[in-house]
């Protein structure tokens, strides 16, 4: 028996239910397993943060959910949206079903806006493409409302994109996505190109969005601070897999997975009193290591970590879900206690050169 969608009904509040999703890229040398067996569920109206180092597959996962993949990439698994598996349909049908309900917010807003079109025309085009027969009056009312929510004054409705500052453009782009009232939005590093204060403004707005729109959001970022500020839940990704997922507060205060803990430790924040870092570099995703993919860099690695892959599940009551043998053992779960003494031996790690790093 395999664990597929058939025997799992998505939770009541789930907008999008991802089961065992794989997104692999074809390259000249072979497949890159950018996303390799990810289970994820997005609840209605929540912001789920997706965090990881560059190259861990977080952007690929975000795009994979929306089907925005380059040539030579392939997906499998299941992606249940609105009761139907998008991956089991023909791409055309999936596109139609998905329609305006799934949106994407990109990192560089200027490249997504047509410099020759006014803001009003952008809204008109977006709305008319997805909602046939919408009246001009309604277009304007909906657009102005979306702009207002994003803090853009109506005086700018007829302006051109170049008349906006960087932060305004990003807010404009968010407004353009939200005007369709999508059920689910992927925001890929929406604030990375922005300044600290503007970034904070946008995080604030994203955080407050839930009260206005009933939209779920997958917020992809490498900045743990942003997750802590804006997200309800957080998923930590490493080398194509989700290694830990749970309430943001819980994950940050009591990380279960060694990688999460080390990532938090290596982050420099205002309360940093010493520098910590994770040794080594993330693995080559065309040939990932066996077992837990973090084991070659993990300070807690045991023999079993290099042999068998841990399962993502709750290891402590009320805690987050983690895929970590160390957590299983230290929390004394059934699986943890079932390990043999040999398997729990600390792993002899290969010496890692100082400069082996990302």
């Amino acid at each position, binding site marked *: *028996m*395999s*664990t597929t969608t058939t025997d799992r009904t998505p939770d009541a509040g789930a907008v999008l239910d991802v089961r*065992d999703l*794989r997104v*692999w*890229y*074809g*390259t*000249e*040398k*072979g*497949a890159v397993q950018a996303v390799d*067996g990810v289970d994820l569920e997005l609840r209605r109206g929540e912001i789920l943060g997706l965090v990881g180092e560059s190259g861990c597959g977080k952007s690929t996962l975000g795009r994979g959910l929306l089907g925005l993949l380059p*040539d*030579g*990439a*392939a997906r*499998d698994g299941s992606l249940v949206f609105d009761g139907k598996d998008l991956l089991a349909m023909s791409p055309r049908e999936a596109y139609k079903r998905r329609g305006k309900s799934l949106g994407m917010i990109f990192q560089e807003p200027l490249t997504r806006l047509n410099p020759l079109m006014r803001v009003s025309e952008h809204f008109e085009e977006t709305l008319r493409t997805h909602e046939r027969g919408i009246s001009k009056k309604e277009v304007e009312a909906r657009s102005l409302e979306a702009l207002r929510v994003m803090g853009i004054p109506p005086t700018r409705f007829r302006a051109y994109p170049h008349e906006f500052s960087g932060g305004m453009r990003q807010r404009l782009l968010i407004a353009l996505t939200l005007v369709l009232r999508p059920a689910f939005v992927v925001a890929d590093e929406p604030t990375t190109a922005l300044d600290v204060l503007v970034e904070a403004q946008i995080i604030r707005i994203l955080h407050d969005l839930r009260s206005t729109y009933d939209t779920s959001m997958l917020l992809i970022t490498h900045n743990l601070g942003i997750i802590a500020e804006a997200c309800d839940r957080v998923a930590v990704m490493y080398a194509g897999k989700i290694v830990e997922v749970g309430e943001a507060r819980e994950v940050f205060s009591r990380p279960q997975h060694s990688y999460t803990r080390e990532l938090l430790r290596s982050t420099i924040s205002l309360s940093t009193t010493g520098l910590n870092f994770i040794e080594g570099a993330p693995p080559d995703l065309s040939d990932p290591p066996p077992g837990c993919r973090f084991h070659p860099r993990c300070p807690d690695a045991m023999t079993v970590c290099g042999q*068998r*892959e*841990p*399962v993502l599940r709750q290891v402590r009551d009320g805690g987050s879900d983690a895929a970590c043998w160390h957590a299983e053992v230290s929390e004394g779960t059934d*699986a943890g206690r*079932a390990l043999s003494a040999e398997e729990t031996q600390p792993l002899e790690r290969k010496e890692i050169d100082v400069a082996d790093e990302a």
Partner: protein
Amino acid sequence: MRFLHTIWHTKGLARYLFWTGVVLTLVFVVLALFAHWIAPYDFAERRVDGVRFPASEGPSAEHLLGTNDQSYDILSRLIWGARTALQVVFGAVIMSAVIGVPLGLFSGFVGGWFDRVTVFLMDALYSFPSLLLAIVFSFMLRDVLGGSIVAAALSLTAIYIPQYFRVVRNTTVSARESTYVEAARAIGAPPRTIMGRYLFGNVVQSVPVIGTLNAADALSTLAALGFLGLGIQPTEASEWGYDLSRALDNVAAGDFASAFWPGLAIILFITALTLVGEGLNETLNPTLRRRRLQKVTFGPRPSREEAIR
């Protein structure tokens, strides 16, 4: 070597066309290099042991492709023509690159009024039809150098300099602002070093492509000059364009062979060079390039039960 690797991993028709071009070009190069041994006679030879060749004769054991109206052996003229074509084209491409690249590099780097003046001159030169320009130059050089191979190569050189100049100058202008050039300034590199060690290697990368494409163009211009009687004199070297133009008069008299062969040679060589150029362009230019991706085949899923145990 990286570049061969790139070509190998390029997808589709481009790769086959490129290799066809390479093979054809190599054939011409071999003919040109070993004309001494391959050609049965010299290009200006029309008598052996005091016996003059017949004029406008069909193929025979002595003359595999026959002879033309001047009693020259067509095959020999063809093979020696390849040498002429290669000498002129190679000379012209090398010389125009040798002048155009450093000029573009310097002009783009120093900027200012020097740049503006040079760009203006080059644009003016570039806006002329290349054949017209070549004719003008060959007239001007005729008094000094006569109808020699060098004269032909020089008049072609002049018309291709602007192409190298423009490409190199524009790449330099954008590369000048890059961080690694700023870094070179920061370590105290003088302008000469910045141009030579930092910019040159990065801005010449498109030059081979222009070179091969120019070579094809130069070949047709050379043939056109010869056809108009303004190119290389028949006594200096064998030249396909000249042979073609002479032979055309005899086509009415039923002598197709002497026009057909030089015409075919011109077409084949131009095609070969164009294929190489376009192939290079498509592989080296990332915007045109389509990589040969391996198809993704998902392996079997690791059974979860086993993982859980």
